[in-house]
């Protein structure tokens, strides 16, 4: 479904990702772990077209999307919940969600209702400019916005950041449920225990390279992972 | 006569910027003069003049830079410049301190000349309009007169006040004094205000743009009475723009194709027409005369002319020999008022002497 080969990305002369390759199968849920500054976000941004990689390819369903511009990647069926949320501050919550109609992907009333079901808080705040939302509310909105485009592949960059525990549970339940329905998902998560408990496959990134990969069981046994991420 | 050879004259022009249309006229008039002087040897046997042009864009700072460069360039023998009085005031001290002769051609502020380097071929305005006002007052006997004045151009304002004095002396009542600014474009308000006072004569004494705008607005709003104005109406382009809206409106000046008939005027008009396929206006005539004035000064010298000698010669000149006005007296570096022509545009785009309608 999503095949990333030898992805290399840099910010000017600063190299952030060097030759990452990973494969996310249809309907699978993969997780990426790594410490601060490892290059997790850069990897996701480069896959989604939010950052232009300098090398490597990103294949979605056999099509190379690494040269597409951001909105075309979204239209091709890949959605990102970015680090820092990037909600459109001047637009209301509802406008933010409905903007997805431009993706040409469904995002019908049903999806909107589903998003509001998942995050009742957003429904309460639907007419508020999203820049005025609390941090966690914005995070919910960012997730909701990605869902609105009804993507085939969903990339989440630390979805639990800033969310209260009950909402974290909800989000992960939703992720699992979506995955069960056949949604392909790649998630970066700091809450490693939680992430490893739901995923099919995991990667650990260090200094822009993949250093460990394997099934959740294998990762859990890895001493490095144990020490840094599971405590 | 001076030694044969090439002498350079620096011109700080206004080819771009807000007054470019007039600036180009001056520049073209000067070019005509150069050609004529060189072909007829007016500056002496074997003497050719070359015009070195720097555009100021009507910006004082740029004009100052240009004048400084001319002043320090030893090849430049004399300079000429300036439509705007403010720029003239800024460059005059530079010419004086660099000891290079400067002939001012457009700026109408008084007391610009400085002995001996700075001279002016512009007659100070006023007397011509006064003549015109006297004629109009006596021939038309207006009762109620409205004046459109310039709020940011003292020279035009002074001219208008001089006219007002004459007209009021004839017994006419001033019903309105309406001020506009040079940069204005919308005159519906002032026109409405003017018409509301029901005048039988309207005097428009402002810079070119507002003058044309005010007259157009007055006519569009249905004012059919008499209007008088200044020479700003004279360029053919103004007629081309406004058409017969401005027909029959008198203005006073010293040079106008179709009316001026001195030998110099005719040859100037012909040369200009041949070169630019258009008729020269009073601005072109001034640019022309500035160069002729310099040539006349050069011709009066011997050997290799110096800036100092040239300046002295020009300062002491009492009459510009080649001039399209049919006579141009000079006094202490300042042109005196030449003969006055009171003219108007006709409906078919010619300029004729004004007659009482």
């Amino acid at each position, binding site marked *: 479904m999503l095949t990333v080969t030898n992805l290399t990305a840099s910010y*000017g*002369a*600063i*190299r952030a990702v060097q030759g990452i390759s990973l494969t996310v199968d249809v309907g699978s849920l993969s997780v990426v772990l790594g410490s601060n500054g490892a290059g997790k976000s850069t990897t996701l941004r480069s896959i989604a077209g939010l950052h232009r990689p300098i090398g490597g390819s990103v294949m979605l369903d056999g099509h190379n999307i690494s040269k597409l511009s951001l909105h075309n990647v979204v239209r091709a069926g890949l959605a990102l919940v970015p680090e820092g949320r990037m909600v459109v501050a001047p637009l209301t919550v509802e406008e933010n969600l409905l903007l997805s109609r431009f993706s040409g992907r469904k995002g019908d009333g049903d999806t909107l209702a589903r998003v509001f079901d998942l995050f009742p808080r957003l429904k309460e705040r639907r007419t508020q400019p999203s820049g005025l939302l609390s941090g966690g509310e914005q995070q919910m909105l960012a997730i909701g916005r990605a869902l609105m485009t009804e993507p085939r592949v969903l990339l989440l960059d630390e979805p639990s950041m800033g969310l209260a525990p009950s909402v974290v549970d909800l989000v992960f339940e939703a992720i699992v449920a979506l995955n069960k329905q056949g949604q392909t998902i790649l998630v970066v998560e700091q809450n490693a225990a939680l992430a490893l408990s739901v995923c099919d496959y995991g990667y650990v990134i260090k200094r822009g390279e993949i250093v460990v990969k394997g099934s959740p069981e294998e990762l859990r046994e890895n001493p490095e992972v144990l020490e840094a991420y599971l405590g | 006569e001076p030694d044969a050879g090439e002498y350079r004259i620096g011109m700080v022009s206004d080819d*771009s910027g807000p007054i470019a249309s007039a600036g180009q006229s001056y520049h073209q008039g000067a070019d005509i003069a150069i050609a004529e002087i060189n072909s007829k040897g007016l500056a002496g046997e074997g003497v050719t003049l070359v015009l070195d*042009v*720097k*555009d100021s*864009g009507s*910006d*004082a*700072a*740029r004009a*100052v*830079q240009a004048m*400084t*460069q001319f*002043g*320090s*360039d*030893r090849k430049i023998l004399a300079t000429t410049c300036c439509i705007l*009085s*403010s720029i003239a*005031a*800024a460059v005059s*001290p*530079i010419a004086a*301190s660099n000891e290079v002769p400067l002939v001012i051609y457009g700026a109408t*502020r008084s007391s610009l000349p400085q002995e001996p380097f700075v001279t002016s071929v512009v007659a100070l305005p006023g007397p011509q309009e006064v003549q015109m006002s006297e004629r109009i007052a006596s021939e038309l006997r207006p009762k109620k007169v409205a004046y459109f004045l310039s709020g*940011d*151009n*003292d020279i035009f304002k002074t001219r208008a006040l001089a006219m007002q004095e004459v007209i009021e002396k004839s017994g006419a009542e001033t019903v309105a004094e309406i001020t506009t600014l040079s940069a204005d474009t919308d005159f519906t308000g002032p026109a409405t205000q003017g018409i509301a006072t029901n005048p039988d004569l309207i005097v428009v004494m402002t810079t070119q743009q507002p003058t044309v705008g005010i007259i157009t607005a007055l006519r569009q709003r249905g004012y059919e009475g008499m209007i008088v104005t200044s020479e700003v109406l004279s360029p053919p382009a103004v007629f081309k723009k406004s058409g017969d809206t401005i027909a029959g409106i008198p203005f006073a000046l010293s040079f106008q194709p179709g009316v001026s008939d001195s030998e110099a005027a005719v040859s100037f008009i012909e040369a200009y027409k041949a070169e630019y396929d258009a008729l020269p206006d009073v601005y072109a005539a001034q640019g022309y005369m500035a160069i002729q004035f310099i040539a006349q000064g050069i011709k009066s010298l011997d050997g290799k002319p110096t800036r100092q000698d040239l300046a002295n010669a020009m300062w002491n000149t009492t009459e510009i020999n080649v001039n399209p006005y049919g006579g141009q007296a000079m006094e202490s570096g300042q042109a005196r008022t030449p003969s006055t022509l009171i003219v108007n545009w006709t409906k078919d785009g010619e300029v004729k002497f004004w007659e009482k309608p």
Partner: protein
Amino acid sequence: MEALLDFWSAYSAAIAFGLVNSLFALSMYSVLSAGILSFTTVVFAAIGGFAAAQVIGTFGLPLWVAFPLAGIAGGIGSAIIAAIFLKLETHWMALASLAMVLITRVTVLNTPSLTGGVMGMMVPVRASVLELTILVAIVALVFYRLHNSWYGLAIRAVREDAAAASTMGVSLRHIQLIAFLISGVVGGLAGAAMATTLQYISADTFYLGVAFTMIAGTVLGGSFHWFGPIVGAFVFTALPSVTQAVLPELQDIAKGVVLLVIMIYLPRGLIDPRARGLRKAARQRQDAAVREQDNASKLVKNAGQAHD
């Protein structure tokens, strides 16, 4: 030698205006560096310019008395304006400052006893290039010191994020007031320098044209470091002369194109400390990476020895 002298006298005017425009640009930069887009420099310059013209013309005082007086006059003007303006927010302040420029023009035109009205004023003394250079050098020294002081740090913080800076104990008002006062003094000096360079000033001298020049110069040179405005002012002053020499008919267009190209390639101006910071960061990371590799290989070696 003579050719050299000729060259100097031909271009000394351009250099003089470059120096004068540097002062204008620095005055604008002073408030810009606090995140305020304000054209009030023109107002301060008018105050300083006419003050200098009066001091020199009417009272016959020398240049180096006129300069400080003009600076003080500009500073007083800025204190008054700051009292009104610091209530406003950024965009509104920009407009209010334009309004001030227009009000100043009307005031100048209508107070002939002070300013000569529409006729303007002649200034009998000319500042030499050397004198202007000294003036600019003094002002530049002040900006250099400011940049490297606590004020410099605080003002950059205020510009980037005023609210965050305030929770660090930086008083927004205080910093912005200082910025305005400096802008006023330097603006007053700029006006005096302009008056003694042109030797003639009028309402038109201190109008939108100079506002254009100073903002274009400031941003072109770089509005994130005090040296930027000086560079920008010189480039922007030299542009017309250069384009006139190369393409006399199209000089204005050429000037626009050069401005456009510079901004497209260097959107933050010719002097950009951030770009320098980025380059530095890149270098350091590379060094760090190399060091780490060295360490790693050393470790491997050590490990190898341990096995022995």
